[in-house]
Structure formats: C-alpha cells, structure tokens
C-alpha cells in the first residue's frame, strides 16, 4: 500500500490546504507572541548585571535560532525538490528563504541594539554576530541566484545546489569564525550566556521561539500560495478558482 503523501505534493491540492492552515498558524503565532512579550517584559526579572537591556535577547535569540534552522529546512526542501523532482518542494524552499533572511536581519539588528549598551559599540566582531552576518550573505546569494535565472525550474534547481553547498559550509564557517574569535580575544561577554537564566526567562524565550515558528510557517505557506498562483497561472484549476465566488 502506498501512503498518499504525494497527493498533497501537487500544487493544486496543496493550495486550498495551505489556505485553510494559514489562519491557524497565524493566530497561534499572534497569541504566543503576545504571551511571550508579556512574559519577557513584565514577568521576567531584571538582570542585576545588564539591567533592562538584556531583555532584547527574548527577540534576538529566537530570531537567531530561526535563521539557522530555516536555512537547514530550506536546504532540505531544496534537496527534496532536486532528488524527487517535486515542484512543491522547490516552491517551499524559495518561500522560506525571505523569512529566513528576515530573521537573520532581526538577529543582527537586535544584536547591534544589545551591543551598544553592553559593549559600548553598535557592532563587535563577536563570533555569533559574524557568523550570522555570513549566514545573511548566504541567504542573499540564494535569493539573488533564484531571481537572476529566468526559467523557474532551472532557478529552483540551481539555487537548490547552492543551498546544499551552503548547508555543508555553514558548520565549517561557524567553527572557523568561532575559532578565529577566540584566537583574536574578541568580546568576552557572549550573548547566549545570559548570566544565570531564571526559569521565567527561559520560559519567555521558549514561548517567543514558538511564536516565531508559527509566524514562519504561516508566512511560508502564504508565500508558497503566491508562488503557486504565479507559476501555475496557465493551469485549468486556477482558472476555475478565479470563477468561484469567495
């Protein structure tokens, strides 16, 4: 017996399914974000060393997590598209890329905001920030390559190869940057080692991370719907879709 997974791999069946799922993810993302922000700004205690400014980690750390995680997921979808030649997988990969890049920018931005009161400079060549910056370059490369190739199928496949090369390189880049940083005696305060995490801090961070997850899924689904419409504009089911009253 063959499990009917591939049924949902057809853009025509996935399109309405995604439409039904988006509100669920979007709403749970919004609710979680409100709860997470409440926890992080009102419940979590003030840090005795860094004062109130540390609270930016509630956004910074989940964003940094997401940026790396989304890259891996994106490469996974891209690889699936390359191997099984399923169009939807490649569409998912290109739908995830902007969200991943957005989280990378957020992580960098909040890192800079956190760096000013902590290190006294907007930008410090800290290992984490530096690798985040290189990750942003990798995302931009993926997006630029995809945009530069006119034929969408070829664009999918070429950027899939790039994503896979990137995913092999990300750990190498990460460790080399980390190693470079310890060698050059960079900043001694690391952002992940928020001194003595209280339970409420951890909870706030986890809730925020979940909110980011929900947002990412909702955003990726919404974007993949746009991509489906754009690419399948000649298909019959889209013509039928346009006739239906909504």
């Amino acid at each position: 017996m063959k499990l009917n997974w591939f049924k949902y791999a057809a853009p025509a069946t996935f399109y309405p399914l995604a439409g039904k799922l988006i509100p669920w993810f979007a709403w749970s993302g919004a609710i979680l974000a409100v709860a997470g922000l409440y926890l992080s700004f009102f419940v979590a205690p003030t840090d005795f060393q860094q004062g109130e400014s540390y609270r930016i980690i509630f956004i910074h750390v989940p964003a940094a997590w997401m940026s790396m995680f989304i890259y891996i997921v994106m490469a996974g979808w891209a690889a699936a598209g390359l191997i099984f030649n399923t169009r939807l997988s490649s569409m998912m990969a290109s739908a995830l890329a902007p969200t991943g890049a957005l989280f990378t920018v957020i992580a960098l931005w909040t890192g800079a905001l956190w760096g000013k009161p902590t290190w006294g400079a907007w930008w410090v060549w800290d290992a984490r920030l530096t690798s985040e910056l290189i990750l942003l370059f990798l995302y931009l490369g993926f997006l630029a390559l995809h945009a530069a190739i006119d034929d969408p199928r070829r664009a999918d496949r070429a950027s899939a190869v790039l994503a896979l090369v990137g995913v092999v390189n990300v750990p190498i880049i990460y460790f080399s940057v980390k190693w470079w940083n310890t060698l050059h005696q960079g900043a001694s305060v690391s952002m992940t080692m928020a001194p003595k995490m209280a339970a409420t801090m951890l909870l706030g961070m986890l809730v925020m991370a979940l909110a980011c997850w929900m947002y990412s899924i909702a955003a990726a689904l919404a974007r993949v719907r746009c991509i489906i419409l754009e690419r399948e504009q000649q298909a019959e089911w889209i013509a039928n879709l346009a006739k239906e009253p909504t």
Partner: protein
Amino acid sequence: MLEVSGLGCLRGERRLFAGVSFSLRPGGLIWIQGGNGSGKTTLLRTLCGLTPAMAGEVRWGGEPIRKLGEDYRRELTYIGHANGLKEDLSAAENLLAAAHLAGQQASRAEVAGALQGIGLAGREHLPVKFLSQGQRRRAALARLRLAHSRTLWLLDEPFNALDAHAVAGMRHIMEQHLAQGGMIALTTHQEVAIQATDAQALRLDEGSAG
C-alpha cells in the same frame, strides 16, 4: 536502437511539444521539422540527455538514457547550433581536442585528412577566429568524418551557412554513415535529399500549436 515515447518538454511554464514518439533503427534517418520556436533544438538536446524530459522517455537499446549515462554518451555525436570551436585554436587543434575528448584515437594525419575532405585544405592551422562562418561550420562538421564509430548522430541545423558544394559533401558523409548502419536525427530548414533506406519526418508544430 533509439526509442522515443511520449516525449514532452516545457520552456519555462509553456509547453513546447508533447507526445512525441518515434523509433530509429540502424540505417535510419529522422528529419525533425517545425517553425522557429517549435522546440526542434530542445528535442535534440533532450535526445542527447542535456535537457531532461518533462514527460515520456528516451531509450537506447531498451534502457533509459538517464540510466546509461556515459555508455550512451559513448554512442553519440552531437553537433549543436554553436560550433563548439575555440576561437584561439586552429581548426586542426580544435578537431584533435574534440576527438580526444570524445575518447577517439585520432592521429594528426587523420585530422588533416578530415579537414581537407571538408574543404578546409590550407586553412587547418589558422586560428578559428580568422575563418568565415561557413568555414567554421565546416570545421565543426569535420568531427563527423572521425565519428563513424559513433552510432548516433544528432545534428542541429548542420547545413547552416554552408555553400552548395559543402552541403553535397556533408550529404555524402551522412549517406556513408547510414550505409554503415549509423543513425541520424537532424533538424534543417533546407531541403536536402539524403539517400536513406529508412527515412522519416517529424513535424513538431502539429497538434501542439498554441
């Protein structure tokens, strides 16, 4: 034997052709016809294995060419729209490099003979950038004189830019190849009567026009 069944191709999201089926036996020739943009070149590239088919399959001796890989590539010679010549190398150097790359043993004398036979005598050692369009095409086609051991020839507009004399010469080479049990698939705008025991024509813009 080359078998093509239900072949379909897209360009971007637009369908170029669909349901193309034919088979080519030893000594067989297929002439692929169609207007500009009907997908002749794409079909030839799909037959080479350069462009993947969106639907259908190309089989060689019963096996899909995707699986055969190098074993299939060893059987074929493809001459595309572009000549595949390096401007800075002479025709002889180009031909020698092409033969080596294709895994064929070719001596300098054989190369010189092939170039002379196609009407490039005296110009073998001139860099290709100094040759005219027709002469470049001849230099590219000279590969065929060394490629009789390759069963399947896929030729994209071989007669482009050739004069009547060169066309006759090419026709002779192709007839010789067919007589030896070779197979040829070609596209051309010109009417060229090639003697073949088993000749067929395929029109691409029929049925899939639109």
